[in-house]
């Protein structure tokens, strides 16, 4: 190790003159975070043969004798930024060191081990604990947004306990493998207490090769905190965070008068109705006047159902420390999040624990026991959440909340979904979803005697997860009022349409992992550094589940008290299938003087998903690096002040991806029962009053469908320039997926009754570029500044898709998929709004129906192919339906004395969305749904009783077309599909640490208070007040019509403190 440090000094040291006179400097080195002494810190001064060095002892103290004219000392240790301290005639120099992410001695976690960051040849992005926790969110995944180049992340909602995200690495498309403390799927990353996390590494290229089948979409490695040697002492850390959530993009509904006016307008503007009979307008003058005068009261359903703000709180206590024999990190965390409903009927809480204990049994043998777990519970009303939003947004302001405005009688309104009842568990019932997980891992590590640098390591891990859910659908009453006899009539309502029922369901999963490895590290002839790893692991997991349901006639919420009616029970076939893996992993790294770097790794991976003969695959990864800055020719010509580190690297790996959708495709037989793709329930037939599960012959089994391969090539450039102040990385990559399953185009006639089996036929390519830069500077003793930013771009292209020829060239262009970017959306270009009748009459383009029904204010499209009519032939690529193509983040941090400020901006570009349903149009379902206030800004005649089709009618212009406009016309156009690029202030944190002088008196090591905001500001081109990340129809391969009604995202204001005793 010492040799390596020397190497570093070569990089860091400035040329110094050599003098003979000596002086002695003493001092103490402490951690700036908590003031604890740092042992083993290297203090150096001088250069070349005049160089002197020492290291701090356990108390952080040091003594160093230096030439008298030495100007500065250099203080360095792993994990902290180097400090250059001017001596300025001092004899005693105390230095506080800041933890650093960009230290050249920094060690990063890689697959099955660690490597010095400076020696990395693969693409590995890392985050430190402090960089993660600066963002405060209920979902750990959201704390990564904007911080890792190439991580594409969309938060779909802030629904408590839903953990709704879509994300991938570099556009690879599938979910990356998540490895916690060396165990694949060993826990649940989103549900982790962020205070437990020491670091995160994201492996994006050949660095993931040791994960074989699971590595093709990249790997996220999470390492938890372990106790460190503190000379038998422990730190006790307590932190809390109190947050207030605000909900983003919550729309506002029109009032009753506006609703009635809009409906009347629509009737006049509808070509179909306004030309027949003597139509009464839907709302008479008297009916509207009643609301204007206040005789009738407009209902604000949205306000009645949804809160403006709600609470969120987190507490965490942990103990960390130990001696050189035993050290421990023990953590307990709790969080609770309330929701948007007025009744607070949706909420979530979670506790986490972790106990990581390391022991040194003797000089050669070390042991670790890692235990962790979490338990959570989500409560929500029984009514599907999307329905609550759908019906609260749509409920008419002309309907009263209560029948006859008597609060004892909730009003029966159309669809029998009164939002007030739907958010109230005492009416509609509730759902309770809880999950508990426990992970246990034992590790033994042994330094094998006689062979220097050889270690053996054994790991056994077991994980158990159980989901225990309870849902209660309650029958309740809604009332209608009859003024003629002042009577209330009750309607019995359940959201299921069935009697009150209680459902319990239980699912469990047990997984185990066993690992044995040999590690070797040695240096030969002082210049050849070699490490090697050989590892065998096997893992398996198995799930099971069942459920039971009975009708409830007396109000007791347990199955025992339920009636025998409606008794049901069963199990779901998905989730019970076994997963088995085993793999042999090898890796060799070599470097010559830290200058020329090479690495080779492989995994021979096996999985039970594939047919006999195809169960195993070999996945190699290769990478090389060249630290040009270490070459003497480089050093001779370029000052290390300008460029202190310059490395180029290249990697290539052939990884695998096990295709989840087609796993076990080689197994023939019967699906029993076949499962309905729409409701996931068994399919069968009623015979003699019994539901009989069907047995359906599975499609043609395939004897050789196997994994597909993921070939990743990566080129990277790392540099540190300008006095070590700027670090940067540029990477370009290409990932080819080969062997995607499809069916051959040799089609057999339908009369055979089966289609051809799937084969590994198609291929796809993803390419992209990533750039990250960071800047760190310290000005004087009190002020430091850090800046950082990253941006990435990716695009995926189908190389080959097995497909038949199209009928003509246009269709070939439009429908052909081979050699074509993926996820293209086709449509027409929006051209403008008609502003007058004459513009409509003079239009040479037929916008449908010969423009007979077109009115001023209607949208029109560009006649792209110039044939005089707008139809499908005008379709051309207009957008991409995917996660954002460009993702970026930018952070700024200052510290001034005890104050620190950090801001993180994150954003995305190259992303499109389409807001359907009520977000996109007013008065849906033939006026059965109301409208949002934004639609008041619409075209309408000056005289509300004027004939809209009379060319003399005068119009008031607006942003939206008239109420009768058919919004389906813009569905496939650049008017309907809009660019949802955005930048937002994801995190802003202002912290204040109490000065040490005060803390010492009360025996506190560290105390910091902060104010923090999440999603504070959003800048977007979307002008409809909708949050750009809120899912609409996109991004999703199969758009869900209920997406517009998804729970909103939040903005949070947090206050908190960290205290270390």
């Amino acid at each position: 190790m010492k040799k390596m440090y020397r190497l570093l000094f070569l990089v860091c040291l400035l040329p110094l003159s050599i003098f003979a006179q000596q002086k002695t400097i003493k001092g103490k080195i402490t951690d700036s975070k908590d003031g604890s002494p740092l042992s083993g810190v290297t203090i150096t001064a001088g250069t070349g043969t005049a160089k002197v060095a020492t290291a701090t002892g356990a108390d952080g103290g040091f003594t160093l004798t230096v030439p008298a004219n030495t100007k500065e000392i250099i203080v360095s240790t792993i994990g902290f930024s180097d400090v250059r301290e001017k001596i300025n005639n001092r004899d005693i120099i105390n230095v506080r060191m800041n933890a650093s992410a960009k230290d050249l001695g920094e060690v990063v976690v890689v697959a099955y081990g660690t490597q010095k960051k400076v020696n990395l040849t693969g693409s590995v992005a890392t985050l430190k604990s402090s960089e993660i926790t600066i963002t405060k969110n209920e979902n750990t995944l959201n704390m990564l947004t904007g911080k890792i180049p190439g991580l594409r992340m969309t938060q779909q909602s802030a629904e408590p306990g839903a953990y709704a995200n879509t994300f991938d690495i570099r556009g690879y498309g599938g979910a990356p493998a998540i490895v916690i403390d060396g165990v694949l799927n060993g826990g649940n990353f989103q549900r982790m207490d962020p205070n437990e996390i020491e670091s995160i590494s994201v492996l994006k290229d050949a660095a993931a090769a040791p994960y074989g089948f699971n590595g093709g979409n990249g790997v996220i490695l999470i390492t938890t905190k372990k106790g460190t040697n503190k000379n038998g002492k422990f730190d006790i850390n307590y932190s809390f965070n109190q947050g207030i959530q605000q909900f983003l993009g919550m729309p506002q509904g029109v009032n009753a008068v506006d609703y009635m006016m809009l409906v009347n307008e629509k009737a006049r503007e509808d070509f179909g109705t306004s030309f027949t009979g003597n139509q009464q307008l839907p709302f008479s003058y008297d009916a509207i006047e009643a609301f204007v005068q206040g005789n009738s009261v407009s209902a604000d359903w949205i306000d009645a159902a949804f809160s403006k703000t709600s609470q969120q709180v987190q507490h965490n206590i942990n103990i960390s420390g130990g001696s050189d024999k035993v050290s421990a990190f023990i953590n307990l965390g709790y969080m609770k999040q309330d929701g948007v409903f007025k009744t607070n009927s949706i909420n979530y809480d979670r506790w986490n624990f972790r106990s990581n204990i390391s022991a040194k049994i003797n000089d050669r043998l070390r042991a670790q026991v890692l235990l962790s777990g979490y338990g959570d519970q989500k409560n929500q009303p029984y009514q599907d959440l999307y329905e609550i939003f759908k019906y609260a947004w749509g409920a008419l302001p002309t309907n009263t909340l209560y029948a006859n405005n008597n609060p004892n009688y909730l009003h029966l309104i159309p669809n029998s979904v009164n939002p007030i009842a739907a958010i109230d568990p005492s009416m509609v019932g509730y759902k309770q979803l809880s999950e508990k997980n426990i992970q246990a891992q034992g590790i033994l590590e042994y330094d094998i005697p006689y062979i220097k640098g050889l270690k053996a390591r054994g790991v056994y891990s077991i994980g158990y997860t159980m989901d225990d859910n309870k849902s209660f659908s309650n029958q309740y009453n809604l009332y209608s009022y009859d003024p003629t006899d002042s009577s209330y009539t009750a309607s019995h309502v359940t959201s299921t349409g069935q009697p009150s029922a209680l459902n319990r369901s239980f699912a469990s999963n047990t997984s185990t992992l066993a690992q044995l490895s040999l590690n070797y590290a040695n240096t030969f002839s002082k210049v050849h550094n070699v490490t090697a790893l050989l590892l065998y692991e096997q893992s398996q997991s198995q799930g099971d589940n069942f459920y039971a349901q009975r009708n409830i006639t007396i109000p007791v919420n347990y199955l025992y008290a339920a009636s025998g009616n409606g008794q049901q029970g069963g199990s779901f076939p998905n989730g019970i299938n076994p997963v088995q893996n085993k793999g042999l992993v090898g890796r060799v790294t070599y470097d010559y003087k830290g200058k020329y770097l090479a690495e080779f790794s492989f995994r021979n991976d096996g999985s039970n998903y594939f047919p006999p003969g195809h169960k195993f695959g070999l996945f190699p990864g290769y990478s090389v690096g060249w630290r040009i800055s270490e070459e003497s020719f480089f050093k001779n010509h370029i000052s290390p002040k300008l460029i202190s580190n310059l490395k180029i690297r290249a990697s290539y790996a052939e990884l695998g991806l096990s295709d989840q959708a087609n796993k076990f495709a080689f197994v023939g037989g019967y699906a029993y029962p076949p499962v309905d793709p729409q409701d996931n329930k068994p399919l069968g037939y009623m015979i003699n009053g019994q539901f009989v599960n069907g047995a359906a012959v599975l499609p043609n089994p395939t004897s050789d469908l196997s994994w597909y391969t993921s070939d990743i090539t990566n080129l990277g450039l790392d540099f540190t320039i300008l006095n070590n102040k700027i670090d940067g990385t540029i990477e370009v990559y290409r990932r080819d997926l080969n062997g995607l399953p499809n069916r051959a185009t040799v089609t057999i006639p339908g009369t055979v009754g089966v289609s051809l089996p799937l084969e590994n036929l198609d291929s796809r390519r993803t390419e992209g570029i990533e750039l990250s830069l960071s800047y760190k500077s310290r000005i004087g003793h009190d002020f430091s500044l850090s800046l950082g930013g990253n941006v990435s771009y990716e695009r995926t292209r189908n190389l080959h898709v097995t497909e038949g020829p199209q009928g003509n060239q246009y269709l070939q262009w439009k429908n052909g998929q081979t050699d074509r970017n993926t996820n293209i959306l086709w449509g027409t270009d929006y051209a403008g709004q008609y502003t007058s009748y004459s513009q409509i009459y003079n239009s040479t383009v037929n916008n449908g129906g010969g423009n007979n029904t077109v009115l001023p204010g209607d949208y029109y499209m560009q006649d792209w192919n110039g044939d005089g009519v707008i139809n499908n032939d005008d379709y051309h690529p207009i957008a991409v339906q995917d996660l954002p193509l460009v993702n970026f983040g930018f952070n700024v941090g200052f510290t001034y004395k005890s104050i620190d400020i950090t801001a993180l901006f994150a954003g995305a570009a190259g992303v499109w969305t389409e807001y359907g349903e009520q977000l996109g149009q007013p008065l849906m379902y033939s006026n059965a749904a109301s409208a949002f206030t934004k639609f008041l800004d619409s075209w309408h005649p000056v005289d509300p009783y004027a004939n809209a089709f009379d060319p003399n009618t005068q119009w008031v212009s607006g942003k939206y077309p008239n109420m009768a406009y058919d919004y389906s016309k813009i569905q496939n156009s650049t008017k309907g599909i809009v660019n949802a690029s955005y930048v937002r202030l994801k995190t802003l944190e202002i912290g204040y640490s109490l000065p040490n002088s005060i803390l010492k008196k009360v025996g506190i090591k560290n105390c910091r208070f902060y104010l923090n905001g999440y999603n504070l500001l959003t800048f977007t081109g979307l002008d409809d007040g909708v949050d750009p990340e809120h899912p609409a129809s996109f991004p999703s391969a199969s758009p869900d019509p209920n997406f517009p009604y998804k729970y909103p995202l939040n903005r949070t204001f947090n206050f908190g403190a960290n205290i270390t005793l």
Partner: protein
Amino acid sequence: MIIAGLLISITSCQKLDAIRQDVLTDDQIFSSEAGITAYVAQEYRKLPIESFEYRPDGRNDGSGDIGFNLHHEWEHFYRAGAACGEMVGPYGGTGDIANGFGYWPYADIRAVNYFIATLPKYASNFTPDKVNNFLGEAYFIRAYYYFALAKRYGGIPIITTVQNYPQQTVQELQVHRNTEDEVWTFIGNQLDSAYQLLPASMGALERANKYTAMALKSRAMLYAGSIAKYGSQNFVDGDARAQGFAGISADKAPAYFQKAIDASKLVAEGPYSLYRKSADKIKNYTDVFLDATSPENILIRSYYAGDPERCNSWDATFSPQGKLNYMSSGGGSRAYPTLELVERFDSLNMVINPDGTPRRFDHPADPFQNLEPRLRATVYFPGDVLRGKVFDQREGIYLTIFNGTVADEVAKPSGARSYLSSSDPTITYNGALGTVIGGAGMYPPGSPDNVTRTGFYVRKYIDYTKTVDQVNLFTGTTPWIEFRYAEILLNRAEADIETNQLNDALTCLNDIRDRAGAPALTLTDMTVDVVRNERCKELAFENHYWWDIRRWRVADVWLSNAHFKGLYPYYVENEGKYIFLKETENFNRNYNFDKKNYYEGLPGGELATNPNLYPNNPGY
């Protein structure tokens, strides 16, 4: 040591041999009657029974069961009868369904073929009788698929074995069409085999027995007979016709008709009779479709409100939902019986005075009190009561009555008429009458089409015992009756009349008319038209009409520039009376039938993969 121990425990290497645990093998399926039942449950689920949820436009909602989505389809008003004048509804015209949806159930046929080929290997698990019964059921099921194919396409390939690729070459698999005559003959023979093998009961009304096989044969042979006879008179010529793929020579007709009669007579040997439990003829006929113990039921399809919920939505989607929760808590109607259908029973001329002016009625229910009980049980008229609520429907209000005759009034352009109307059933006029159009009132086009536009509502299959609360989407458990004895009598009567066996026809018809509460006919009444009219009345809304007017080859005549009518109630305010005008339904849809649609074209995708399927049917 510890490491070594770990090493030993680990190296007891796991095999990667665990496979999915949610599949069964032939051994498991064919080892027990329960396994067989699971197999046939899947086949019955896929059986092309045109029950409540059948969508003749073949809507593909992602379920994979195009046209026959048993579990998620709720828009039952998309009925075939609503595209051709039995009802008017959401379809714009006949063309919406006439080209079919490419029904091509060879995957299901393969499953039956596999069953028939595999069962004998496991015969030792069952008694010989059981094996025969299972085989007989499979023959019935296979015949049913071919029946559904033949009535759409005529001649199609008959596949009775399990084909495999690449064991068989693509060329071998590119089979030719069988002639239409061969297909219908095959269906008849399959059902004869089924009759021989099946017992008198399979223990469930949802499963076929020997009489069910003959019921299907009765229907299929009647179809074949009419296609041979009338398809030889009214056709589009082409290669497929010349080669016998679309069309049967007329001389085959009598034999097919006779087979229909013979099969019907075999059904009569079974335990079936017309439902006559109630003395009240209206109630009795209503209950034919609701009473699970009806002796008339030969094969039914059942629904289930438990878990997994498999319900229909008939009650909800044929009950008015104009005003909030009027007669159902969700859904709402969109298809309505036409005046033409009602007039098959009764001319309804009592609504017009001899001088052509509208007759005034004190109460909206007055004109309908003495109609045939079967009609009253088939259609809901103004003033009828359901779930405690009155069918209250109007086109609008005349403040004073118009001058002149009804004919003159309804001939005026709609804008020139002087009544008040509304597009919302909650809009009132002076408060006196309730609302302008009534709670079940009549919307103009463009408004939500969930109240009548003919003045009538469907009553057949409507469960009057339910409360409004209980009626919603996916809450209906009334079984669909696929074969009932009345149809067999009508099949027999029609085949009789086509083969001049008038006495037998009269007996069958009068049995039905007696139960219907209609006067008996005499031998002199026995004509093809009378028998067909009786069939249209008795089997209204049961998804027969569309196929009947095709096989009679009358669709192109009956649906030539056709507009259908309703009976429109109005309130005359100054007189305080009701009048009823026969008017073209207010969507004024125009119906036509293209003669080539007597056959559907073969699915384009199938022609692309198998050139031997050419020639396609004439006109395609």
